């Protein structure tokens, strides 16, 4: 049984006990504990259930590689699933629940015995449930979804908040173990700015646990003074609880800092996502121990040898009373010695090598431990945890030669450098036969924008073993990073701290215990604990032809769990290599992708939630709209009033009222969102003629012209009224959503294609508030304000503009109309927009002036048959489809889209073209409805011959009106089309002219 030792624990403070709960049970641990160490300290070895088979699982590791001990943490707005107990710092009141079981962790009815597991082999998704088809959706999938899966998503809104932080630094050092510290110091000594980050809350990594001595001191003592000395350097910055999540192109790195996970506080950000631009990166990310594959290795109580040692040394916790060591290398002997020193039982050290002759093995023997070379494990007895260990010869097929009582197995299959970060940005690996691991290949590093190395590896991450070699490599990495930035040249590098390289007996790769384990044992030898992938599964995938490691991964789901195969990767591909008869280095690894460990969605979102989720653009009149109860419509990032419902009025009724009031009296529209782009210069006329399909160069100063803009592929992308301000200046009005896009495309043409044309553009959209005054009484309202200029039909005819003043307010008045009424658009500096609006409202009172929103605007333009970009166009429509031939100049040599519009398909007489649609019963057609045609297409679907693009109830005509694109539409006036609807009879509509109201335009010319 695991338990807290009476003394020891370098990271815990026994004077500060902390209360926490696990599955509702109140427990106690100490400050400095992780959730995993606190649970082990209370005898709780069982921590979760596996993904597929619901097998009981205990903690395996002591760091971020942990596959098993995942819990749901917190509750309500602070709940987070799939949290690793091994990296969760204990705090008072912590609440954790285990996952993936029912009804309880100890008795899970979903647990699948070995018999049933035969029906869930690798690739079971792909082959077992294909037939009958309907069964997948209704039977198999619901059943599998119920049983498979880990944490449940949070149900409440996240109570915490998050932020981003952008920095630039010369050098980023990842990992605050002894290598990171040495590398950071060496880098800083070149004069570079250095940021050193460490995922844990303490510095020094695992060197103190492993008993490393540096410059004659213990690693703890050395770390303490090295950190203090680093902190005193002005060019060094340091952060704990900060994990490098991903290395991206050109030195861009994401760091995930956890500010309050160890001491919850909703008033400050919980996590901070650092976006770092680093000149050079040093990865001092250490190494990870590999498990060994033997039958029953997933039983709670089977742990990594290094983790067992960590729990004893760091937390004063014994994972078991009697621990059997299983190893293929010398390092695990440290665990045996540590346990012995703590007074715990070590009944045997099973060494799969035929010889165990290193100094550590000797020390173990000297301590009286039973070292058994050439020995492996045949099986484990025990239900929810290890109870007895059956021994066998490693060379054999698993014949039991002995049985030992034990409650813990400390296994070590050797160490793999943590190469994830090196590989994120395409650093390559090479295979090291002696250590049986992949290590970064310094000849093929990740490269930066200049094609040169942007990353260096330090210490065990480089494949170095032995403390002396580790520190040498770390120091060299720090110096190289500085030199790569041109710093520290000619400066003598500082001293490398001294440490001894311990002598050791070479490790021997072992991928299966025992070597000739039969199928029955291989089917119980786990590779990926979290996803339940066993040796037999990878073998099956290989036999079924999955020779590529990437395919085998996906077929078996090896390494696809939340731990991303940190423990299973090398073991799995070694099995694949054995089965394929291909050397490991040729099989290769799967791709290491960011993030290194899961990053919270909150950190990724940063500040962008709630009111800051997206910017909301507001016009100068926005506050008035709010006060007047506007019903809103998003238009790009703008919020525009859709309508202004009055007390007791529906939105539909409001729209009807607004239309009628405008048509019969006068309406007021906030048109400030309209794009306004100035084009000026000696070549502006030429430029304008290229941008628009119309001839804009012939427009006279003082006049306006409606224009169309097409993409180079001929499709209509924007429209609006152009005013010529003077000889070489034009003002282009664009759609509200199109201003930024059109401005950017103008700049692009000028900067790339027509770079020698003398024309400048400026987006002045936000400089002006623009207010539409429309309706038969519009002129009367303006005249109330004492205009300085003549607004009569002679002086300011339709499609003209003038500068002047309304009262004492400087304005520009455009005589343009989108409603078909007598209409003026008045532009004033934005800072005076609200004042102008208020004055117009006041002046319009006697005429019943009525503010109207975008829906009334849409209805009125549709009554006139005016098109709307985004309704009548969808990126596949050319102006000719919309009957806008009159706005396409025939006299110009060229304009954007001209050549494309001459293509065969664009000139096809069968293209769908714009018409009006009048329902026979006066009802409103559904938006987007299709007009049915005879017969069916190649897919057996009913053929169509047109679709509705705009459809409204017209208050003016008191009936439904619509526009649509119909095959040969304008040639088929009077024909009846059928529009099938989901419920009920098809709606019949007649093809008519789209100009439903005042087709001759008499009103706008008044």
């Amino acid at each position, binding site marked *: 049984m695991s338990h807290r030792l009476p003394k020891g624990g370098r990271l815990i403070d026994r004077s500060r006990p902390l209360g926490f709960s696990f599955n509702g049970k109140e427990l106690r641990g100490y400050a400095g504990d992780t959730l995993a160490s606190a649970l082990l300290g209370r005898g709780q070895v069982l921590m979760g259930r596996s993904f597929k088979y619901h097998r009981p699982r205990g903690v395996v590791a002591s760091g971020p590689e942990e596959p098993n001990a995942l819990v749901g943490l917190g509750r309500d707005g602070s709940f987070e699933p799939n949290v690793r107990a091994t990296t969760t710092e204990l705090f008072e009141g912590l609440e954790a629940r285990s996952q993936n079981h029912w009804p309880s962790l100890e008795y899970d009815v979903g647990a699948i015995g070995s018999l049933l597991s035969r029906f869930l082999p690798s690739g079971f998704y792909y082959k077992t449930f294909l037939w009958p088809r309907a069964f997948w959706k209704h039977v198999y999938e619901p059943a599998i979804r119920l049983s498979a899966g880990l944490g449940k998503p949070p149900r409440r809104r996240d109570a915490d908040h998050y932020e*981003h932080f952008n920095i630039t630094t010369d050098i980023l050092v990842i990992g605050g173990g002894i290598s990171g510290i040495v590398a950071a110091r060496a880098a800083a000594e070149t004069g570079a700015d250095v940021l050193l980050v460490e995922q844990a809350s303490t510095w020094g990594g695992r060197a103190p646990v492993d008993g490393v001595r540096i410059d004659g001191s213990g690693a703890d003592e050395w770390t303490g003074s090295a950190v203090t000395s680093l902190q005193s350097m002005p060019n060094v910055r340091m952060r704990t609880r900060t994990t490098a999540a991903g290395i991206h192109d050109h030195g861009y790195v994401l760091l995930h800092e956890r500010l309050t996970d160890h001491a919850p506080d909703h008033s400050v950000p919980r996590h901070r996502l650092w976006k770092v631009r680093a000149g050079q990166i040093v990865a001092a990310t250490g190494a990870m121990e590999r498990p060994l594959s033997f039958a029953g290795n997933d039983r709670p109580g089977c742990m990594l040898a290094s983790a067992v040692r960590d729990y004893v040394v760091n937390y004063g916790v014994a994972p078991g009373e009697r621990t059997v060591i299983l190893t293929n290398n010398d390092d695990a002997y440290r665990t045996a010695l540590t346990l012995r020193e703590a007074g715990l039982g070590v009944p045997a050290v099973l060494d799969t090598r035929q010889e165990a002759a290193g100094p550590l093995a000797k020390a173990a023997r000297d301590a009286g431990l039973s070292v058994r070379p050439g020995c492996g494990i045949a099986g484990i007895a025990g239900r929810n945890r290890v109870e007895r260990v059956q021994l066998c010869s490693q060379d054999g097929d698993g014949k039991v030669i002995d049985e030992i009582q034990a409650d813990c197995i400390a296994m070590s299959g050797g160490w793999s450098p943590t190469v994830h970060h090196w590989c994120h940005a395409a650093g390559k690996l090479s295979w090291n036969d002696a250590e049986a691991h992949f290590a970064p290949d310094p000849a093929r590093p990740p490269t930066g924008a200049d094609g040169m190395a942007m990353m260096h590896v330090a210490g065990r991450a480089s494949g170095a073993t032995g403390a002396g070699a580790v520190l040498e490599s770390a120091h060299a990495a720090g110096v190289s990073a500085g030199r790569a930035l041109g710093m520290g040249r000619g400066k003598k590098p500082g001293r490398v701290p001294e440490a001894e390289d311990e002598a050791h007996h070479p490790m021997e790769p072992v991928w299966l215990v025992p070597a000739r384990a039969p199928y029955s044992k291989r089917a119980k030898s786990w590779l990926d604990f979290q996803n339940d992938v066993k040796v037999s599964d990878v073998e099956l995938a290989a036999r079924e032809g999955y020779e590529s490691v990437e395919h085998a991964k996906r077929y078996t789901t090896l390494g696809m769990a939340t731990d991303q195969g940190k423990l299973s990767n090398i073991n799995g591909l070694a099995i694949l290599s054995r089965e394929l008869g291909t050397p490991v280095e040729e099989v290769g690894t799967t791709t290491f992708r960011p993030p290194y460990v899961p990053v919270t969605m909150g950190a990724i979102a940063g500040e962008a939630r709630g009111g800051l989720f997206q*910017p909301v653009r*507001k016009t100068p009149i926005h506050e008035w709209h709010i006060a007047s109860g506007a019903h809103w419509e998003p238009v790009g990032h703008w919020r525009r009033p859709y309508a202004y419902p009055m007390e007791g009025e529906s939105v539909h009724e409001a729209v009807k009222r607004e239309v009628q009031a405008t048509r019969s009296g006068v309406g007021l529209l906030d048109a400030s969102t309209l794009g306004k782009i100035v084009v000026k210069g*000696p070549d502006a006329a030429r430029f304008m003629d290229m941008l628009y399909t119309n001839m804009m160069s012939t427009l006279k100063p003082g006049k306006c012209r409606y224009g169309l803009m097409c993409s180079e592929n001929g499709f209509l992308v924007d429209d609006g009224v152009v005013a010529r301000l003077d000889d070489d200046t034009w003002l282009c009005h664009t759609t509200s959503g199109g201003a930024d896009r059109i401005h950017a495309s103008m700049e692009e043409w000028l900067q790339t294609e027509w770079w020698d044309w003398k024309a400048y553009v400026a987006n002045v959209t936000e*400089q002006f508030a623009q207010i539409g005054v429309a309706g038969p009484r519009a002129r009367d309202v303006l005249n109330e304000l004492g205009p300085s200029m003549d607004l009569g039909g002679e002086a300011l005819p339709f499609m003209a503009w003038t500068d002047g003043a309304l009262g004492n307010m400087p304005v520009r008045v455009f005589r343009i109309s989108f409603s078909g009424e007598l209409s003026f658009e008045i532009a004033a500096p934005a800072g*005076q927009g609200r004042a102008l609006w208020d004055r117009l409202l006041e002046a319009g009172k006697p005429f019943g002036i009525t503010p109207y929103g975008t829906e009334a605007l849409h209805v009125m333009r549709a009554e006139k048959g005016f098109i709307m970009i985004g309704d009548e166009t969808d990126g596949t429509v050319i102006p000719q489809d919309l009957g806008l031939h009159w706005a396409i100049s025939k006299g110009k040599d060229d304009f954007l889209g001209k050549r494309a519009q001459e293509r065969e398909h664009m000139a096809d007489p069968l293209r769908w073209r714009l018409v009006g649609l009048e329902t026979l019963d006066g009802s409103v057609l559904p938006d987007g409805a299709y007009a049915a045609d005879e017969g069916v297409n190649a897919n057996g679907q009913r053929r169509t011959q047109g679709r509705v693009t705009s459809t409204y109830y017209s208050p003016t005509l008191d009936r439904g009106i619509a526009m649509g694109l119909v095959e040969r539409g304008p040639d088929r006036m009077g024909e009846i089309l059928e529009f099938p609807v989901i419920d009920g009879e098809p709606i019949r509509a007649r093809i008519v002219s789209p100009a439903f109201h005042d087709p001759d335009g008499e009103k706008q010319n008044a």
Partner: protein
Amino acid sequence: MPESVTPLDGATYSGFVTIQDAGLVGMILLRADLGDADVVSALDGAGIEVPGAGALVGGLGNGALWMSPDELMILCAHDEAEATVETLGEALGGLHVLVANVSDSRAVFRLAGEGSAVREVLAKLSPADLRQTALPPGRVRRTRLAQVAAAFWFADDDEAVLICFRSVAGYVLDLLSKAATPGSEVGHF
């Protein structure tokens, strides 16, 4: 003429950085080839010194910001902007330029705080290199703040001026206020 109002209407926020509406500011957009000697001497004649790439001269009320190799933002008093546009038009007459009064199209903030506090708040929202060495007083940076365009410069070591488009003034105020919430200091710079 009615009094002009700023989009922030005098708003302030006090966190570990103080955020304030800088009030009405005259801003004139000038598009011209800043490498053209005639342009430079005409501007000089109009009393405008052309700042070097990425730099500014002067400050709010009287100054010029370098925006790109062919764009300056000229700063003046708000009520002098129209007259300055006229003056510039005359001084640059005959040259290929675009001059426009854009005083009302932007919102202007003043940010003040102790030490590197302002740099820290900006670094939460902008990808710009905010190290003192990279952005000392005298340099101007066009960048983004979360999801919108912005530009800023340090008027002093611990005080910055920030401009953004008028329509997103409220969004930017909320962004800056959140970033300056007490307790969220980073302590990096």
